[in-house]
């Protein structure tokens, strides 16, 4: 999606990119003070839950933005390409998470925080997007 040239982007893609950039900005602003508070202040469990929810909100917003994009996109080809990319990224990420989970349970691999899974999902999407556009160019 981000690889799409701005002039080639559909209105729905442009809106999704705009929403995502705002959410990323919100994430970058919200996260550091929460991490600092967690490390330097004694905070009750209730407040910690609120802080965790606050940190998660922008990421949840990004998922909601993907849903909104798929609903807003009027170009069926772009919609199909995005759906395929999401399906591939979801399968690859879930597969990797399951394998890593068992490796971790058997003590072979270290613990990875669960919030890295959505990050891996986005990276997988980008990787598949690059691979797909490279194959299109090759053929």
């Amino acid at each position, binding site marked *: 999606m981000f690889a799409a040239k701005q002039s*080639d982007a*559909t209105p729905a893609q442009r809106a999704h990119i705009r929403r995502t950039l705002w959410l990323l900005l919100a994430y970058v602003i919200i996260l550091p003070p929460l991490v600092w508070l967690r490390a330097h202040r004694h905070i009750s469990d209730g407040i910690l839950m609120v802080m965790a929810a606050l940190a998660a909100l922008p990421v949840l917003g990004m998922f909601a933005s993907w849903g909104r994009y798929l609903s807003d996109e*009027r*170009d*069926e*080809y*772009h919609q*199909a390409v995005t759906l395929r990319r999401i399906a591939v990224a979801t399968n690859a990420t879930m597969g990797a998470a399951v394998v890593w989970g068992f490796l971790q349970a058997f003590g072979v691999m270290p613990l990875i925080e669960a919030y890295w899974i959505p990050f891996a999902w986005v990276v997988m999407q980008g990787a598949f997007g690059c691979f797909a556009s490279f194959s*299109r160019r090759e*053929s």
Partner: protein
Amino acid sequence: MENRLRVLRAERNWSQQDLGERLEVSRQSINAIETGKYDPSLPLAFRIAELFELPIEEIFVSPSRRSSKAI
């Protein structure tokens, strides 16, 4: 799916962008359909047929008919 979209477009001297604007889809969609990488939905296939004033089967080659010809 094989189709004659590129030929029909060229006969009218339309670019992929022109055709995309007429069909209200992106240039990339037109390119993907022309190169057979994407099969349009039935509503879009009808819009294409109506734009060129041709029956759908004169624009898109039925995969089953194509394979029976090959036999």
